[in-house]
């Protein structure tokens, strides 16, 4: 395993080393120490590798990840694993807003809580949150699955496309065009699989499923909100 101390080296030096395919012949495992909330750590990784960030990270940690497994032993700032394509990112603590935003693939696990807009505009990523998520989570979610073991804030799944949402606790409110849907066997099966991948023993029967009513898919005058409470676009 290679070690990199951000007390001694810069973010640029770290990412350049990671992009160069490691540096340590063989295992391609990295331990990053003293992150101290720095931004853009381990972003743009593009090959299989194991990266552990031992501490708190700032914005866009593991952004646009491909193939790599990244674990953060701390909290993360805005946009952890944003636009992830593949691989796995695990946050041992809490995450700020826009976790997993626009992700196209891979698995994001947040053991703590995630703030607002978790999974915003998700495009195929799977996100499992051990705690709760904030308002506007899965806004305009297009594809993928969001699993919330705690509660969800206001306007869950607003303007949702085809992303599937599972929430165990309370949902403060559903957003435009997001509705509760029946849990069938195939949903319980995929939820069990996601929970197992995250290492959680919660039971699928404890969750409710939410998805798109598909009423906003095509523009129609009856879909236009005239009450000043926000549009559908």
């Amino acid at each position, binding site marked *: 395993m290679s070690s990199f101390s951000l007390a001694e080296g810069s973010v640029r030096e770290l990412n350049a080393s990671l992009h160069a395919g490691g540096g340590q012949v063989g295992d391609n495992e990295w331990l990053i120490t003293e992150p101290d909330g720095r*931004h853009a750590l381990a*972003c743009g990784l593009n090959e299989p590798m194991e990266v552990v960030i031992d501490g708190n990270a700032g*914005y866009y940690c593991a952004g646009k990840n491909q193939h790599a497994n990244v674990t953060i032993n701390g909290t993360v700032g805005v946009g952890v694993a944003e636009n992830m394509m593949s691989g796995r990112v695990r946050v041992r603590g809490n995450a700020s*807003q*826009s976790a997993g935003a*626009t992700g196209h693939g891979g698995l994001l696990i947040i053991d703590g809580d995630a703030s607002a*807009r978790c999974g915003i505009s998700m495009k195929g990523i799977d996100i499992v949150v051990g705690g709760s998520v904030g308002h506007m989570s899965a806004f305009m979610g297009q594809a993928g699955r969001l699993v919330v073991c705690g509660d969800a804030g206001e306007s869950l799944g607003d303007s949702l496309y085809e992303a599937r949402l599972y929430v165990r606790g309370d949902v403060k409110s559903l957003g435009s065009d997001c509705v509760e849907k029946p849990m069938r066997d195939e949903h319980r099966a995929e939820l069990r699989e996601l929970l197992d991948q995250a290492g959680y023993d919660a039971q699928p029967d404890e969750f409710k499923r939410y998805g798109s009513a598909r009423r906003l898919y095509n*523009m129609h005058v009856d879909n236009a909100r005239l009450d000043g409470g926000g549009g559908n676009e």
Partner: protein
Amino acid sequence: MSESNGNWGLQESATFDRGVISEIHRAAETGVYDIRGFGAKRSMPHFDDLLFLGASMSRYPLEGYREKCDTDVVLGDLNASRPLHLSIPVAIAGMSFGALSAQAKEALGRGASVMGTSTTTGDGGMTDEERGQSSQLVYQYLPSRYGMNPDHLRMADAIEVVLGQGAKPGGGGMLMGQKISERVAEMRTLPAGVDQRSACRHPDWTGPDDLAIKIEELREITDWEKPIYIKIGASRTYYDVKLAVKSGADVVVLDGMQGGTAATQEVFIEHVGIPILAAIPQAVQALQEMGMHRRVKLIVSGGIRSGADVAKAMALGADAVGIGTAAMIALGCNHPRWDEDYKQIGSAAGFYDDYQAGNDPAGISTQDPELAARLDPEFAGRRLANYLKVLTLEAQTIARACGKAHLHNLEPEDLVALNVEAASMARVPLAGTSWVPGWEG
């Protein structure tokens, strides 16, 4: 009224003219606002309201054909290790695959590459056709992040973070269901046939402080190789340009309200934003006050049609211009050869603006395979290259007449305005006077 006078006594209302009446009827019948493509059609102060002061006794002209008048521009040399070097200061503005056919995107790449300039992707990601045919390709990073792929970020020659466009500052993209083909839907991870409304805000940053960190991430992912552009629609330009520079842009792309769109509400196109003529001086002032003019490069777009427009934009302080609508016209949009087809869909050559409908007879703004096949990318690419060549030759002609050995040497002092409005907006004197309305003292 007597019969001999015919209709001569009829008076059309200036307030409720036939166009207004038609729109009220349309609104009453449908209950939905009008959506169309193209750009603003209203009259407004523009480059036509400016004139150059050619050399005579007090200035020394260059010979029109043979003396040196360079046209190249370097973009992104402030921070990027691999800046773009364009042979001509006319780039192709961002237009998406989805809005345009794959053939049209390929043609844009072919024409631009012949002339040594860049093309730009759009909402929906990068296609093989445009990457393959574009020697220099700018990859747009949009609020929707449709098709956003880090491999494409690394394949691009520059990255353009899009905050807005001139046709609709504050609005997101639209692509109506009839243009969401299987390929377009797959690239955007959307069900085929939906009316796609792109987000108007980025999903993972808010404000310039966050944007600076986002740009840092983009630079880290691409190992600080790529120039980073920030594109804004012209509105509060002075402040927006300052914030774009603060956020770390290498290039600011400023799109005036004449800029085109594939689909937007008519009310948005005609009533939001400001003309490019008014926006350029604001941007230049902001850059100059920060000591960044000519360091952070300024690309302006929105209503560029001729080499005179190119020269005027550069004289006002731009480093380069972008063309979108004009490039589409050069490919063949609104060409008289398709007039019968235009009439069949209720339009006419020279008037067609229903890019949202997906039934473009010229095969440019469509995803219909039969219509798209009408556009030969090689032929259309040659037309675009010819047009770009003319723009450059015209701009050089004017620059030489003003005694400039490089287009970048054109300056506001070379310009005067034909009317008070243009003089005030462009901050150049009314012709024959030393009066710059609103800016003296």
